[in-house]
């Protein structure tokens, strides 16, 4: 598989446009600036890790790119299409793994996948066969007839991932896709995603699991207080920060010192004892 975005650009004799891009993307909530003039250019085939502490602006950035949140300034898009001018064209080309409670809890897993497939214009036969394959791959066959509301956290993540990829989008946005997922399924999904990007698809991946980021991502963007502070490959990041792992590099990059000073009452150094 090659990326449809890259195919289109090559047929026009141009260099392919970034699969995901943002220019001066800014979002303010009252006086607080959640995302501050972010520029992004993620190329087709990249497995891009969008990292940051809680409240750094990762989810807000993704929401603006996929059209769920209007930016105060700047714009974003997918390939040749601007999210805010051609929303339908953008939405046809993306798959989004939503937060776990944003699914249709009153549909069964099978119904949720069929619904998503229909909205993406898949034929009935394609929808049915892809649904069965995805449910089998993700070990959800036995739960296909259960309401999503009755699913465990990991099962919700898995069915949401299946829904995000059922139409084989060239760009995937994954927000903490492995949270609560069992190790066997997690490994399966990781292999699947790696194969997917190897064939030209682009993945924007947001996670706090640094070992997964290190294992999967080809490039990282670290956000802090709404700004993009560093963009580099995992190896470049470790070299720049002079550390061994992405986790250590991330901590250095966001400028946090690991200290628990001031909690003497908690660690017992003040002489206090647990109740």
């Amino acid at each position, binding site marked *: 598989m090659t990326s449809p975005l890259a195919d289109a650009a090559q047929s026009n004799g141009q260099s392919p446009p970034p699969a995901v891009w943002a220019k001066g993307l800014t979002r303010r909530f009252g006086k607080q600036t959640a995302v501050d003039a972010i520029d992004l250019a993620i190329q087709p085939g990249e497995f891009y890790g969008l990292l940051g502490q809680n409240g750094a602006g990762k989810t807000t950035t993704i929401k603006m790119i996929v059209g769920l949140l209007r930016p105060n300034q700047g714009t974003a898009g997918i390939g040749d299409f601007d999210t805010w001018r051609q*929303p339908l064209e953008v939405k046809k080309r993306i798959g989004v793994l939503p937060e776990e409670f944003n*699914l249709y809890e*009153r549909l069964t897993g099978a119904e949720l996948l069929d619904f998503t497939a229909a909205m993406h214009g898949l034929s009935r036969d394609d929808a049915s066969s892809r649904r069965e394959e995805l449910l089998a791959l993700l070990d959800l066959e036995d739960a296909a007839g259960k309401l999503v509301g009755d699913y465990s956290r990991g099962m919700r993540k898995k069915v949401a991932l299946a829904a995000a990829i059922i139409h084989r989008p060239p760009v995937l946005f994954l927000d903490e896709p492995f949270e609560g997922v069992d190790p066997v399924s997690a490994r399966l999904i990781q292999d699947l995603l790696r194969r997917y990007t190897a064939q030209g698809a682009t993945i924007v991946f947001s996670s706090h699991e640094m070992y997964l980021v290190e294992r999967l991502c080809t490039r990282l963007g670290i956000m802090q207080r709404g700004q993009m502070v560093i963009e580099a490959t995992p190896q470049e990041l470790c070299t720049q920060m002079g550390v061994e792992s992405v986790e250590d590099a991330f901590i250095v990059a966001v400028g946090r010192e690991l200290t628990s000073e001031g909690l003497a009452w908690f660690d017992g150094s003040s002489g206090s004892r647990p109740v």
Partner: protein
Amino acid sequence: MLWLGWYLSGRLVDLHNSLPPAAADEFSLWTSLLFFVGWVTLPVVIFPLDEGLDPAQMGVFSVPRRRLLAGLAAASLIGPSAVVPIMAIVANLSLRTPLVTIFGLAAGAVYLALLAVTAQLFTASISAILRSRRGRDLAVFLIVGIGLFSFGAYQTLSARVEAVGLEDALMANSLAGIAPLLFPVTPQRAVLAASNGQWVQAFAFLVLAVAWIGVLASLWGRLLGWMLVTPDRSPRPDRNRRKKGLADSGPWNPRAVLARKELRFFVRDPRMRLVWTGTVIFVGLAIAVLVVGTESMSEIRDSYWLPLLAPAMVLFVGLPIALNQFGWERNAASYLFVLPVKTRHLLYGKNLAIAAGLLLETAFLAVLLAIISRSWEVIHIVPALAVSAIGCQLAVGNVVSVITPLRLPREGTDVFSQATEQGFLAMAAQLASFFVIGLLLVPPAVAVVLTVDFGRVVSPWVTTAICIGWGLLLYGISLWVGGAILKRRVPEVVGWVQVK
């Protein structure tokens, strides 16, 4: 609440004073009972359970069980609604002698404590049912049951009073004899005994009331203890309810699949079921009024035009859904709006489902009203009038839904809880839209009236054409306008309907 308390207390004193002593005593016992039942049950039905006082959340703190129960019971008396029983107690005491009033103060305090503990026991029982999703689904029947029971009880009491008079009704249905067993009236029985100078009996009743508090508190404590250590019950993991997906059968295009998704939601969501069963409750009450009602009611019951009321009744049912189509999506709105569907198709799919539900309810109701009135003369006008009514409702609903969506509580909370921060503008828009729907229905209504009355100057065929044409015209315009507005407002709609 102050006004309500003042009004009810005034009525209580007036009625009490107009009765002979024996009947007045019975009257005060009955009042005590009705206040009690109303105060304990109404908050559960009308108001949300206070999540800040959720015992499950408090159970993690190291508060002794007895202190936790006392705190929760006392907290339930902190609120405007407590004004009503307190004023009733004060009014009751004003009817007694000074010495009895002092005793009555203690009995009043016991009555309030009994109220608080019983209310907590009732709420805890409801919570025990609501804590599982299956329980929350069943809660729909609870509200229907309480509503129908209250209506039935009111009809029975008022019919009895109308038949034999208040005094005879009270004397024939004495509570004084069963007061020791009927704990809501035990404190009042103590006050009555004190009024009659039977002080030993008065103190015995007061001690009995305190004992009742102990029994109920013990039950409540046991229930709370069970709830704190028993996990929520979910359906069995191996339960395979519906193996088929949407692709296995039925129409397959984005609009139709969206409508099918909505229809499933109507059936499976307890709040939606509550809205849709509104018609059933409405019909139940209407039939009860028509059957047990007065002479003027029988005139309505025998009217040949009764089936024409069906589309109007169904308007009330569809209103909360049609005017807030995206509010019902709740957090799933962010799922829906990343799918590549034209906004007009989104509205159309949702409209299809709502129209199907409303047409079904209209048909059911029209046939029922025709049976009650024993008249099928105008039934052929009902389908056209229904199309017109539903068309007007969806026409207004599409525009209001995309301009002022209302935030609903998160799915999974109990069916009675209300969302906050809805905003005055949104509420006003919802109210105003109801009147606009009424105005839009004037032309088809006039045509229908001229077809069934006033010399029947308009042919039924012309009326059918006017009704259907008018409904479809307005609906078509709204679909176009609503779709265009929604296209520009997707982020605002998503932001507004999502529950944080």
